[in-house]
């Protein structure tokens, strides 16, 4: 993929269990939303890409957004923050509250034994440790707490608005953080990805070539004050429709709200999805549902692949015990969508990505 100048670029990376987003403005300034790891190099995918383009990451990364704390959105974010010292770090406001920080310090503090997988707590703990250290050595660090309908970045025509989390979503999240900690009192275990993603930060990126909606893992909620209902019905969010959509929550039904498509997106919006292999997302029915709203659907990786056969002894011993097996594929998908002008969009993908 070649670098395009004087255009707005949206790049989505996904290795099958994570995602990371880059947006480049015409000003040659970039924002990074979340982080995932390239399984081949074990480096943050977005950072590798920027360095391969020769971007001055120390000065041209303006904003790094941590949309929420789950491991599929946050792996490698510490390294990105360390490498881009002049960027403002934007956190979902729910993550810099006592309830969440207690969870982090209790389960994933630097001095605590932690597991390989901690649903992002370990990575958040590293970020916090960095903030602690940086606080003592520099005055340049900038943190921003993100709630609904705030402009968190602007530069001439370019703006980034946070659309969530709403106050009600934050309140719900804080309750769930407390439950997660209480649940560790009997036997210490992995904090698996909670079912609700209400504290996720959805973003509206406005440029003079077109707007981009980044759905993070925000889900629909029965509560009109939470999730997509709160976003769509807000009178104080940017009202311009978007040409590009990073589909919420890996295309799952839980992240879907019809009005998101009809009220916030242009017709046939370019829609990019990251797979989430642990839950088989997006499902076939998810793709079918999204097709009702757009014909431009791109996914970072193809569906799961069949695993190799086991040796006879193992197969005999596990017959009736292992009911299903699937390989969690390790390849990095990259979808790049270029806004050349308001009426011209082009898409480039690597070999792992697929168009539906």
């Amino acid at each position: 993929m070649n670098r395009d100048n004087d255009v707005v670029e949206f790049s989505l990376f996904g290795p099958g269990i994570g995602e990371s987003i880059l947006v480049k403005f015409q000003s040659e300034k970039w924002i990074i939303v979340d982080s995932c790891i390239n399984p081949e190099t074990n480096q943050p995918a977005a950072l590798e890409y920027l360095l391969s383009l020769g971007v001055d990451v120390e000065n041209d990364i303006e904003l790094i957004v941590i949309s929420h704390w789950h491991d599929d959105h946050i792996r490698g974010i510490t390294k990105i923050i360390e490498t881009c010292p002049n960027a403002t770090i934007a956190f979902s406001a729910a993550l810099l509250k006592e309830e969440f920080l207690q969870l982090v310090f209790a389960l994933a503090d630097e001095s605590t034994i932690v597991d390989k997988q901690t649903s992002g707590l370990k990575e958040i703990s590293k970020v916090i440790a960095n903030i602690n250290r940086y606080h003592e050595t520099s005055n340049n660090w900038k943190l921003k707490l993100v709630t609904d309908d705030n402009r968190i970045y602007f530069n001439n025509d370019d703006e980034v608005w946070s659309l969530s989390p709403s106050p009600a979503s934050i309140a719900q999240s804080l309750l769930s953080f407390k439950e997660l900690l209480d649940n560790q009192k009997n036997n210490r275990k992995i904090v698996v990805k909670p079912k609700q993603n209400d504290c996720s930060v959805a973003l509206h990126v406005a440029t003079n070539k077109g707007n981009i909606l980044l759905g993070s893992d925000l889900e629909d909620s029965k509560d009109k004050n939470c999730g997509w209902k709160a976003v769509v019905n807000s009178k104080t969010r940017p009202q311009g429709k978007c040409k590009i959509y990073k589909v919420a929550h890996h295309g799952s039904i839980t992240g879907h709200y019809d009005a998101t498509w009809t009220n916030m997106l242009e017709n046939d919006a370019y829609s990019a999805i990251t797979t989430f292999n642990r839950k088989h997302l997006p499902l076939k029915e998810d793709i079918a549902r999204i097709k009702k709203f757009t014909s431009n659907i791109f996914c970072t990786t193809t569906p799961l692949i069949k695993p190799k056969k086991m040796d006879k002894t193992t197969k005999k011993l596990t017959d009736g015990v292992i009911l299903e097996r699937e390989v969690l594929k390790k390849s990095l998908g990259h979808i790049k969508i270029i806004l050349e002008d308001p009426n011209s969009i082009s898409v480039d993908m690597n070999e792992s990505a697929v168009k539906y």
Partner: protein
Amino acid sequence: MSALLTASREEFVSSFDSFETAEIARLSKTKFLNSLEELNNLDEYYNKASTTTKSISPEKYVTNHSKVENFLESINEKMSLMNTLKLVNSKTVFAELLHKWEGTIIDIDSDNNCFTAIIRDIKDKSKPDEKMKISSSAIMDIDSDVFETGAIFYWTISYMTNESGTKTKQSKIRVRRLKGISSKEISAAKLKAANFLAKIKTLLVHE
């Protein structure tokens, strides 16, 4: 007797658990697997003994009493064995480990008696992780209290050879036990959280 038996059994299990978490890293897999097998046998024997004592004649009770005493002795022997396990001659019993996996339970489907786990191959780390749906019957009863979403388990597939040379195949899952988070740890975390929030106030920017 029953209370004594229960207490001894719990002590034994507790001893085994602490042994598993603290010492497993430096003990041979063979001896560990063998100890697990013995623990299973003891459980089975205990269950049979405790149910039969309820409706038996005095003569039979004496017989069972004797059996229980033998069982308690056996427990003591096994505890002693575990404390000195490193001294056991490794040539008498051995195992050939075919696979060792580490799993994380990500979902439990009680209706269908199965669970979903992400499996990592510990023996061959070059292999990709797999997602497996596994029958809950593979979880041993003694692990039922820690069988829950987020739990880590270790799954071994091995050939076992006993003292008489008989070779058997074995698949065994043990759920990891780690001491739960304490009130003291939670208090410490609360203090750190409060201190951190006070510290970062100067870093926050508002538009």
